[in-house]
């Protein structure tokens, strides 16, 4: 092998080595881009899931509160009906006691 051929061979080898490293850098760039995309997807999934959970929590809270409020309304209505019955049943006694108090007997 002549000296020129040897130099050419080394230059080719250096070029091949450079390509190997450039290819690796390109692949590394793709890996990082893919990781960024994966990170974004992970974040979107987590936030989206949390937003859905939030909507469910608020909906359930509103429905539960409305149900409790209706229950309170029903209890109140029942209590008011009871008051009306008590009034009818005890009105005369109450009037009598009040008059006794006013007359001071």
């Amino acid at each position, binding site marked *: 092998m002549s000296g020129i051929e040897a130099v050419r061979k080394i230059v080719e*080898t250096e070029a091949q080595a450079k390509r190997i490293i450039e290819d690796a850098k390109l692949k590394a760039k793709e890996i990082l881009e893919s990781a960024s995309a994966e990170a974004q997807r992970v974040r979107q999934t987590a936030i989206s899931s*949390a*937003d859905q959970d939030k909507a469910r929590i608020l909906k359930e809270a509103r429905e539960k509160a409305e149900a409790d409020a209706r229950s309170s309304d029903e209890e109140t209505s029942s209590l008011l009906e009871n008051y009306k019955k008590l009034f009818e049943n005890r*009105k005369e006694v109450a009037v009598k006691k009040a008059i006794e108090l006013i007359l001071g007997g």
Partner: protein
Amino acid sequence: MAESLEKLHNRILSDAKLRAADVIREAEEKARQIVDDSRAQAQKDADEILSKANLEAENIRRGILSSRIRANRLRILDEKNQIVQGVLRSVEQSLSDVASTDQFQPALKRFVAEAIDAVGTDDTVVRVGFQNAERKSLDSLGRTLPTGTRFVVEDKPIDDLGGVVAGDVGGKMIFNNSFRARIERLDNQLLTTISSTIFGE
């Protein structure tokens, strides 16, 4: 020479491959770190969203319930008040007709005695006025009063419902012992009595 050149060739490629492997390994480690950091941050953000959601849910629950409970309490108070006022109207009605009952004479004597005692002078003027009261029975009471006491029977019920008003001759000292005045003075007791009788409270 060819052999040493081949060794150099292999050495150059081997070094390049090692360096390439390092570049890939570093990228993979960095990629894992990026995804792990993002996952941790996303979890933190999601936890914060849920934490705020729970607070918001509690506010919604309180907002709905407290306004409704407040409205229902007002309904209850309003109903109770109406019932008590209804009883008081019946009481006033009964008082306006009390002159025709057995309770009247003893009560009248007490009212007059209280009024004279409250004024505390020897020249008291006592005015009485009741609906449907027999003038004769009122006049007979007047004759039993202490000397110096002037007794006046009004044609109309005092303060609409009837009662007794006493004062000195100059009108400086007046004690109103009408039914309405007594109702006002006994306001708290009356409300308590009526409320406890009707509602058992």
